[in-house]
C-alpha cells in the first residue's frame, strides 16, 4: 500500500477582483460628489444611463451603512475568490448588474437605490455553497496538508446555519415589510429585501450551472 505523500501546499490566488471592488466602494464613499452619477435612479435609467444598474451598489447612505455592508462583503468575497476565483470574479461582475436589472423590472416603485448588501448577500451565499460543495467532495479523512483540511466535515452545520440565517432574514423582511437587522441613519430609506433575494438567486444559479466554469487563461488549479 502506498503511503500518501504530503501534497504541496496549494497556492491560493490573490483576490484582486474583491480588492478592486472594495477600493472602488471606498473611493465612491470618499467622493460623495460621484454618488448622484452612480446611484440607481429610475428616471435616469429610463433616460438610458444604464451604468447605474451596476454602479448603484457601490454608493451608500451613511458610514454605518457602508461599514457593515463592506465588512460582510470583504470577508465573503475574499474568501470566495481564494476558493473559486473564476466563478467569484464572474459573480462579482454579473451580480450587481443582474440585481439592478431585477430591481428595475420587479420594483417599479423604487426610485432610488444604493448599497452593496445585495452583492454581499450573493457572495456570502456563494461562499456557503462553495464550502458545502467542497465538504461534500472531501474524503472522510483528510490530510492536514491537503486543501480540504481547512474545512473539516464538522463545518457543514456552520455553512448551513449561515444559509438559513440569510434566508430567514430575507423572509422576515418581506413578511414584516421593514428591515430586520438594520436601521438606516437617514430615515425615509427602506431596506429592499428583493435585492438580497436576487443576490441569493444569482449565487445559486452561478453555483449550480457554472461549477466547471474555468476561463482558458486561468491555470488549471484555480476556480
Amino acid at each position: 500500500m502506498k503511503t500518501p505523500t504530503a501534497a504541496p501546499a496549494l497556492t491560493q490566488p490573490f483576490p484582486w477582483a474583491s480588492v478592486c471592488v472594495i477600493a472602488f466602494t471606498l473611493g465612491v464613499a470618499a467622493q460623495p460628489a460621484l454618488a448622484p452619477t452612480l446611484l440607481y435612479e429610475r428616471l435616469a435609467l429610463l433616460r438610458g444611463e444604464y451604468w447605474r444598474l451596476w454602479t448603484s451598489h457601490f454608493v451608500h447612505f451613511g458610514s454605518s451603512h457602508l461599514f457593515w455592508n463592506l465588512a460582510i462583503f470583504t470577508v465573503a468575497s475574499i474568501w470566495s475568490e481564494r476558493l473559486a476565483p473564476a466563478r467569484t470574479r464572474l459573480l462579482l461582475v454579473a451580480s450587481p448588474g443582474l440585481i439592478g436589472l431585477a430591481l428595475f423590472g420587479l420594483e417599479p416603485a423604487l426610485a432610488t437605490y444604493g448599497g452593496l448588501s445585495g452583492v454581499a448577500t450573493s457572495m456570502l451565499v456563494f461562499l456557503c455553497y462553495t464550502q458545502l460543495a467542497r465538504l461534500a467532495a472531501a474524503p472522510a479523512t483528510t490530510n492536514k496538508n491537503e486543501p480540504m483540511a481547512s474545512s473539516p466535515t464538522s463545518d457543514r452545520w456552520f455553512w448551513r446555519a449561515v444559509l438559513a440565517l440569510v434566508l430567514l432574514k430575507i423572509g422576515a423582511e418581506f413578511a414584516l415589510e421593514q428591515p430586520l437587522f438594520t436601521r438606516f441613519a437617514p430615515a425615509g430609506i427602506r431596506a429592499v429585501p428583493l435585492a438580497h433575494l436576487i443576490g441569493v438567486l444569482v449565487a445559486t444559479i452561478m453555483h449550480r450551472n457554472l461549477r466547471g466554469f474555468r476561463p482558458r487563461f486561468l491555470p488549471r488549479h484555480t476556480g
Partner: protein
Amino acid sequence: MPHVSSSRARGFQPAFFVALLGAALLLGGCLSTRGPRKTERSSSVVSYLYPDQANPLPPTSIPVLRLPLRVGIAFVPGKSDISEQQKSVLLERVAAEFKGRDYIQSIELVPTTYLRAGGGFANLNQVRALLGVDVIALVAYDQVQFTSNNLLSLSYWTIVGAYIFSGNKNDTQTLMEAAVYDIASRHLLFRAPGASRVEAGAAAAYVQQRLRTDSTAGFDAATTELITNLKLQLESFRERVKNAPSEVRIEHRPGYTGGGSLGACFASILGLLFIARVGVRHRA
C-alpha cells in the same frame, strides 16, 4: 454810548425762563410719572384650531405619515401681528434647519394670508389642497414688553436728558411654540417651545425704537431655542414611532428610496456563528 452789558441785561426776561421751566416740568412729568407700560402681541394654536369649542373631541384615527413628507410651516394668525417680512425671515430659519432630510420631501412656507383667524382644520384642509402639504407646523407666539422708569428718568425734566440718559428700562419676554399636526388625522404629532428674554435701557425719546429692536431680538432668540427644541422633539418622535408603531403608521410613497443593508446585528450574528465554529473545530 450805551454799555453792551446793560443792553443784554435789559433783554433778560424772567417770564420766558419761568415758562420754559414750566414746560420742562410738564414734559418731564409726562415722561417720568407714567407707570410701567405693557405691550402684548400673541397668537394661539388652540384659538385657531378650535375657535368655538370649549371641549374639542380628540382625534380617533391613527395618523398615517407617507414618507417622504411634504411639510408646511406657518404662523398662526394673531391679534397684534408682527410684520409679514419678519415672519417670513423667522420661518425660513426654521425651514432651513429641516431641509435636506431624507424623510422630508419639501417644506412650504405658508403665508399668513392663506390662514384666517379661527379657521380650524377646515382652513388647514384648504391649505393642504392648495399647497399639497401633509403635515403642518403651526408657529404661535406670545410676546410681552414692559417699559418702566428708573432713577435716570429724573433727568427727563431737563428735556435734553430725555435724549441722553437711559431712564427707561425695557423688558421683552417672548414665547414661541411650534405644534406639528398631521392635517388628515388632526393629530398633534409633537410640539416644541422656544423662549427668550431681552432687557435693555433706552432714553425716553428712543423708547419705541428700542422696543421694536428688542421685539425683533426676542423673536430671533426664541426662534433659535425653538429650532433646538424642535430638533430634539423630532428625534424623540422618531424614536416613539419606532418603539410604538401603533401610535403612528409610516408608509412610503411610490417612488421611495431603497437601500441594501445587512446591518450590525446580522454581522454580529454571523460573527457569533463563526466564533462557535472556531470553538467546535478547536474541540474536535
